Protein backbone atom coordinates (compact mmCIF):
# COMPACT_ATOMS: atom_id res chain seq x y z
CA UNK A 1 0.00 0.00 0.00
CA UNK A 2 1.09 3.58 -0.66
CA UNK A 3 1.03 5.86 2.37
CA UNK A 4 1.18 9.67 2.36
CA UNK A 5 2.38 11.14 5.66
CA UNK A 6 1.72 14.60 7.10
CA UNK A 7 3.75 15.77 10.11
CA UNK A 8 2.17 18.72 11.92
CA UNK A 9 4.53 19.15 14.87
CA UNK A 10 8.19 19.94 15.36
CA UNK A 11 10.67 17.58 16.99
CA UNK A 12 10.89 17.37 20.82
CA UNK A 13 7.91 19.44 22.09
CA UNK A 14 5.53 16.84 20.69
CA UNK A 15 6.03 13.15 20.01
CA UNK A 16 4.14 13.42 16.71
CA UNK A 17 7.25 13.52 14.53
CA UNK A 18 8.78 10.54 16.38
CA UNK A 19 5.59 8.55 15.88
CA UNK A 20 5.43 9.52 12.21
CA UNK A 21 9.05 8.46 11.81
CA UNK A 22 8.47 5.11 13.55
CA UNK A 23 5.35 4.50 11.45
CA UNK A 24 7.17 5.34 8.21
CA UNK A 25 10.07 3.07 9.11
CA UNK A 26 7.75 0.18 10.04
CA UNK A 27 5.63 0.63 6.92
CA UNK A 28 8.71 0.55 4.68
CA UNK A 29 10.07 -2.50 6.52
CA UNK A 30 6.75 -4.27 5.95
CA UNK A 31 7.06 -3.70 2.20
CA UNK A 32 4.72 -0.72 1.88
CA UNK A 33 5.60 2.45 0.01
CA UNK A 34 5.96 5.90 1.55
CA UNK A 35 6.81 8.09 -1.43
CA UNK A 36 6.58 11.39 0.45
CA UNK A 37 6.39 12.88 3.93
CA UNK A 38 5.04 16.43 4.07
CA UNK A 39 5.93 18.80 6.92
CA UNK A 40 3.49 21.54 7.87
CA UNK A 41 2.77 23.83 10.87
CA UNK A 42 5.67 23.51 13.35
CA UNK A 43 6.52 20.27 11.54
CA UNK A 44 8.80 22.36 9.31
CA UNK A 45 11.22 22.54 12.26
CA UNK A 46 12.08 18.89 11.56
CA UNK A 47 14.14 20.21 8.65
CA UNK A 48 16.39 22.52 10.70
CA UNK A 49 19.95 21.27 10.38
CA UNK A 50 21.02 23.55 13.24
CA UNK A 51 19.07 21.33 15.64
CA UNK A 52 21.54 19.89 18.13
CA UNK A 53 19.96 17.66 20.75
CA UNK A 54 22.04 16.37 23.67
CA UNK A 55 24.26 13.44 22.78
CA UNK A 56 22.21 10.86 24.72
CA UNK A 57 19.00 11.83 22.88
CA UNK A 58 17.71 11.00 19.42
CA UNK A 59 18.38 13.41 16.54
CA UNK A 60 15.15 13.39 14.55
CA UNK A 61 16.41 15.77 11.87
CA UNK A 62 19.22 13.36 11.00
CA UNK A 63 16.99 10.29 11.42
CA UNK A 64 14.50 11.60 8.86
CA UNK A 65 17.35 12.42 6.46
CA UNK A 66 18.87 8.94 6.82
CA UNK A 67 15.53 7.21 6.32
CA UNK A 68 14.89 9.30 3.22
CA UNK A 69 18.33 8.49 1.78
CA UNK A 70 17.92 4.79 2.41
CA UNK A 71 14.42 4.45 0.95
CA UNK A 72 14.13 7.36 -1.47
CA UNK A 73 11.45 9.14 0.55
CA UNK A 74 10.69 12.69 -0.61
CA UNK A 75 10.77 14.97 2.46
CA UNK A 76 8.88 18.16 1.62
CA UNK A 77 8.63 21.25 3.81
CA UNK A 78 5.85 23.78 3.16
CA UNK A 79 7.37 27.05 1.99
CA UNK A 80 4.89 29.42 3.68
CA UNK A 81 5.05 27.62 7.03
CA UNK A 82 8.84 27.36 6.73
CA UNK A 83 9.49 31.04 5.96
CA UNK A 84 7.37 32.09 8.95
CA UNK A 85 9.65 30.02 11.17
CA UNK A 86 12.96 30.96 9.55
CA UNK A 87 13.46 27.61 7.82
CA UNK A 88 15.27 28.51 4.61
CA UNK A 89 17.63 26.75 2.20
CA UNK A 90 20.61 27.98 4.24
CA UNK A 91 19.63 25.83 7.20
CA UNK A 92 17.78 23.02 5.41
CA UNK A 93 18.95 19.58 6.52
CA UNK A 94 20.09 16.86 4.13
CA UNK A 95 17.21 15.06 2.40
CA UNK A 96 14.62 17.83 2.76
CA UNK A 97 13.34 20.23 0.12
CA UNK A 98 11.11 23.28 0.32
CA UNK A 99 7.99 23.43 -1.84
CA UNK A 100 4.34 24.45 -1.83
CA UNK A 101 1.24 23.12 -0.09
CA UNK A 102 0.06 21.80 -3.45
CA UNK A 103 2.54 18.95 -2.90
CA UNK A 104 0.48 17.82 0.08
CA UNK A 105 -2.74 17.76 -1.95
CA UNK A 106 -0.94 15.87 -4.76
CA UNK A 107 0.47 13.35 -2.31
CA UNK A 108 -3.02 12.79 -0.88
CA UNK A 109 -4.38 12.30 -4.40
CA UNK A 110 -1.62 9.91 -5.40
CA UNK A 111 -1.46 7.59 -2.36
CA UNK A 112 -3.88 5.00 -0.97
CA UNK A 113 -3.98 6.35 2.60
CA UNK A 114 -3.17 9.71 4.15
CA UNK A 115 -2.00 9.78 7.75
CA UNK A 116 -1.76 12.90 9.89
CA UNK A 117 0.57 13.02 12.89
CA UNK A 118 -0.07 16.02 15.09
CA UNK A 119 -1.53 17.50 18.24
Amino acid sequence: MKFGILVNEGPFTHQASDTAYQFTKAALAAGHEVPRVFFYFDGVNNANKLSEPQSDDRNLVKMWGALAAEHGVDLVVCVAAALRRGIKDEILAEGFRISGLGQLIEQSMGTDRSLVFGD
Partner: protein
Amino acid sequence: MEVEFETEGVKKKFLFVNRKAPYGTIYALEILEMVLISAAFEQHAVIAFIDDGVFQIQKGHNPKAIGMKHFAPTFGVIEMEKEDADEDEDIDMVWRIVVEKESLEARGLTADDLAIDVDVLSSADLSALMNEQDVVLSA
Protein backbone atom coordinates in the same frame (compact mmCIF):
# COMPACT_ATOMS: atom_id res chain seq x y z
CA MET B 1 14.59 12.71 -3.69
CA GLU B 2 11.77 14.40 -5.53
CA VAL B 3 8.93 12.03 -6.46
CA GLU B 4 6.03 12.56 -8.81
CA PHE B 5 2.49 11.28 -8.34
CA GLU B 6 0.06 10.15 -10.96
CA THR B 7 -2.84 12.52 -10.30
CA GLU B 8 -4.30 12.89 -13.77
CA GLY B 9 -8.06 12.40 -13.55
CA VAL B 10 -7.94 11.67 -9.80
CA LYS B 11 -10.94 13.01 -7.92
CA LYS B 12 -10.99 12.42 -4.19
CA LYS B 13 -13.14 13.47 -1.28
CA PHE B 14 -11.13 15.60 1.12
CA LEU B 15 -12.23 16.45 4.64
CA PHE B 16 -10.57 19.27 6.53
CA VAL B 17 -11.27 19.07 10.27
CA ASN B 18 -10.87 22.39 12.09
CA ARG B 19 -10.69 21.60 15.79
CA LYS B 20 -8.82 24.50 17.38
CA ALA B 21 -9.79 27.98 18.60
CA PRO B 22 -8.92 30.76 16.12
CA TYR B 23 -6.27 32.35 18.35
CA GLY B 24 -3.89 30.88 20.90
CA THR B 25 -2.28 28.58 18.36
CA ILE B 26 -1.59 28.88 14.63
CA TYR B 27 -3.59 25.79 13.62
CA ALA B 28 -6.72 27.62 12.42
CA LEU B 29 -4.78 30.06 10.25
CA GLU B 30 -2.54 27.49 8.60
CA ILE B 31 -5.21 24.84 7.97
CA LEU B 32 -7.17 27.57 6.18
CA GLU B 33 -4.24 28.02 3.79
CA MET B 34 -4.38 24.27 3.18
CA VAL B 35 -8.09 24.40 2.29
CA LEU B 36 -7.58 27.29 -0.13
CA ILE B 37 -4.76 25.52 -1.99
CA SER B 38 -6.88 22.39 -2.38
CA ALA B 39 -9.42 24.36 -4.44
CA ALA B 40 -6.81 24.67 -7.21
CA PHE B 41 -6.86 20.87 -7.60
CA GLU B 42 -10.66 20.70 -8.05
CA GLN B 43 -11.13 18.02 -5.41
CA HIS B 44 -14.34 17.48 -3.48
CA ALA B 45 -14.05 18.94 -0.01
CA VAL B 46 -15.87 19.07 3.29
CA ILE B 47 -14.68 21.78 5.64
CA ALA B 48 -15.80 20.81 9.13
CA PHE B 49 -15.68 22.81 12.34
CA ILE B 50 -15.81 20.88 15.60
CA ASP B 51 -14.81 21.40 19.24
CA ASP B 52 -13.28 24.89 19.78
CA GLY B 53 -12.95 25.07 15.98
CA VAL B 54 -16.51 26.43 15.89
CA PHE B 55 -15.15 29.70 17.33
CA GLN B 56 -13.19 30.17 14.08
CA ILE B 57 -16.37 31.09 12.22
CA GLN B 58 -18.12 33.00 15.00
CA LYS B 59 -19.26 36.50 13.95
CA GLY B 60 -17.47 39.67 15.02
CA HIS B 61 -13.82 38.74 15.38
CA ASN B 62 -11.57 41.66 16.25
CA PRO B 63 -8.12 40.47 17.30
CA LYS B 64 -6.57 43.93 17.14
CA ALA B 65 -6.14 44.21 20.90
CA ILE B 66 -4.06 41.02 21.04
CA GLY B 67 -2.02 41.98 17.98
CA MET B 68 -3.01 38.91 15.97
CA LYS B 69 -3.66 38.77 12.24
CA HIS B 70 -7.34 39.31 11.37
CA PHE B 71 -7.81 36.29 9.13
CA ALA B 72 -11.52 35.63 9.73
CA PRO B 73 -12.52 37.33 6.42
CA THR B 74 -10.72 34.48 4.62
CA PHE B 75 -13.59 32.18 5.62
CA GLY B 76 -15.68 34.30 3.25
CA VAL B 77 -13.30 33.22 0.47
CA ILE B 78 -14.05 29.58 1.29
CA GLU B 79 -17.75 30.36 1.15
CA MET B 80 -17.19 31.94 -2.30
CA GLU B 81 -15.22 28.91 -3.51
CA LYS B 82 -18.13 26.74 -2.43
CA GLU B 83 -20.63 28.96 -4.27
CA ASP B 84 -18.46 28.90 -7.42
CA ALA B 85 -18.32 25.11 -7.22
CA ASP B 86 -22.10 24.94 -6.77
CA GLU B 87 -22.93 27.31 -9.63
CA ASP B 88 -20.29 26.63 -12.29
CA GLU B 89 -21.32 23.54 -14.23
CA ASP B 90 -17.83 23.23 -15.73
CA ILE B 91 -16.32 22.65 -12.30
CA ASP B 92 -16.77 19.09 -11.06
CA MET B 93 -16.21 19.92 -7.42
CA VAL B 94 -18.58 19.63 -4.48
CA TRP B 95 -17.76 21.63 -1.39
CA ARG B 96 -19.60 21.53 1.91
CA ILE B 97 -19.05 23.62 5.00
CA VAL B 98 -20.34 21.84 8.09
CA VAL B 99 -20.33 22.44 11.81
CA GLU B 100 -21.03 19.97 14.59
CA LYS B 101 -24.25 20.71 16.45
CA GLU B 102 -23.02 19.38 19.80
CA SER B 103 -19.89 21.56 19.64
CA LEU B 104 -22.04 24.65 19.04
CA GLU B 105 -24.42 23.78 21.88
CA ALA B 106 -21.64 23.07 24.35
CA ARG B 107 -20.38 26.60 23.75
CA GLY B 108 -23.76 28.34 23.88
CA LEU B 109 -23.74 29.09 20.14
CA THR B 110 -26.28 28.62 17.35
CA ALA B 111 -25.96 28.89 13.56
CA ASP B 112 -27.10 32.55 13.90
CA ASP B 113 -23.83 33.34 15.67
CA LEU B 114 -21.78 32.21 12.69
CA ALA B 115 -20.30 34.50 10.04
CA ILE B 116 -20.75 32.08 7.13
CA ASP B 117 -23.50 29.83 5.83
CA VAL B 118 -22.97 26.29 7.11
CA ASP B 119 -24.78 22.95 7.45
CA VAL B 120 -25.26 22.07 11.10
CA LEU B 121 -24.83 18.30 11.54
CA SER B 122 -25.27 16.08 14.57
CA SER B 123 -22.22 14.23 15.80
CA ALA B 124 -23.66 10.99 14.40
CA ASP B 125 -24.28 12.52 10.95
CA LEU B 126 -20.81 14.07 10.92
CA SER B 127 -19.35 10.70 11.83
CA ALA B 128 -21.17 9.10 8.87
CA LEU B 129 -19.90 11.88 6.58
CA MET B 130 -16.32 11.35 7.82
CA ASN B 131 -16.68 7.68 6.95
CA GLU B 132 -17.39 8.55 3.31
CA GLN B 133 -14.16 10.56 2.84
CA ASP B 134 -10.97 9.50 1.08
CA VAL B 135 -8.57 11.92 2.77
CA VAL B 136 -8.97 13.43 6.24
CA LEU B 137 -6.62 16.27 7.16
CA SER B 138 -7.01 17.81 10.58
CA ALA B 139 -5.53 20.39 12.91
